[in-house]
């Protein structure tokens, strides 16, 4: 019992030492533009042309994910870049290519953008901004 108590003290001390992501709130904000959209396609895939916007006062690094509406990964999506550095009050283009599922003429996806955490800083909260997009196939 005493051993457990000591272990708990050690654990408490160790866990108390875990402070995440710095003390102050950084002045940054990111968004995708547009946040909603529909793409029509004559082929077996559709493309989205988006812009990653950095409203912050400093250049920042961002990474992107393409997800199904239930937030599961969508590995067959292709992006022209998975990470980008965007200058202060600036934006950068992003092209996403998504295949339709077998036999389906519609697909809904989320494209999520998040600020890339700085190396060496454990990040307990990942903040993602996710746009919702639809692809519609016009003919087969």
């Amino acid at each position: 019992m005493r051993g457990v108590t000591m272990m708990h003290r050690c654990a408490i001390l160790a866990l108390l030492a875990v402070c995440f992501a710095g003390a102050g709130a950084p002045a940054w904000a990111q968004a995708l533009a547009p946040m909603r959209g529909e793409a029509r396609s004559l082929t077996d895939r559709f493309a989205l042309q988006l812009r990653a916007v950095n409203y912050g006062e400093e250049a920042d690094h961002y990474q992107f994910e393409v997800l199904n509406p239930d937030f599961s990964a969508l590995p067959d999506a292709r992006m022209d870049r998975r990470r980008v550095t965007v200058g202060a009050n600036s934006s950068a283009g992003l092209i996403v290519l998504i295949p339709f599922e077998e036999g389906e003429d519609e697909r809904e996806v989320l494209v999520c953008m998040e600020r890339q955490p700085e190396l060496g800083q454990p990040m307990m909260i990942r903040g993602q901004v996710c746009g919702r997009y639809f692809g519609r196939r016009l003919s087969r």
Partner: protein
Amino acid sequence: MRRIFLGGVTAAILAAAPSAAPATTNNMLFTGTVIGTCLIPAAVGGTLTVNSAGTGVQTLVAGTATVSPTTTGYSLYLDTPTAFTSTPSGNPAITVTGTFTEPLGSFSNEPFVPGGTPLTAGAHALEISIAATTDDASVLASGVYTLQVTLRCVA
């Protein structure tokens, strides 16, 4: 001679009179499109401590995040972690629960729900707490444990 003089004066007066242009109204159209978006200007992790039984961790200092949809139509999703992101050794099976509060707003100890929580337009300053316990009630080994919450603002 006098007639010529009067005629000249009349012509001069007519020439000097301002031209009476017909009144017209021109409407200048200014068109702008408001595209709603959602910003996450701040997300700062919290601190965990061990629970009283030693079988899990709980929030000591809440994490904070500001989510700012510029229009309605956005929802907040918080992923409940299913495992520790890092542990001193092994990775015990755990059950995690999470809540979020908006001290200056309308959310109070709301649980993380898979369906998301609709947000009103404007800044929401949130405090996020989580707790994890081992499924088999085993005591955690000493060391540093990390849990990661993914916060999403979804259109």
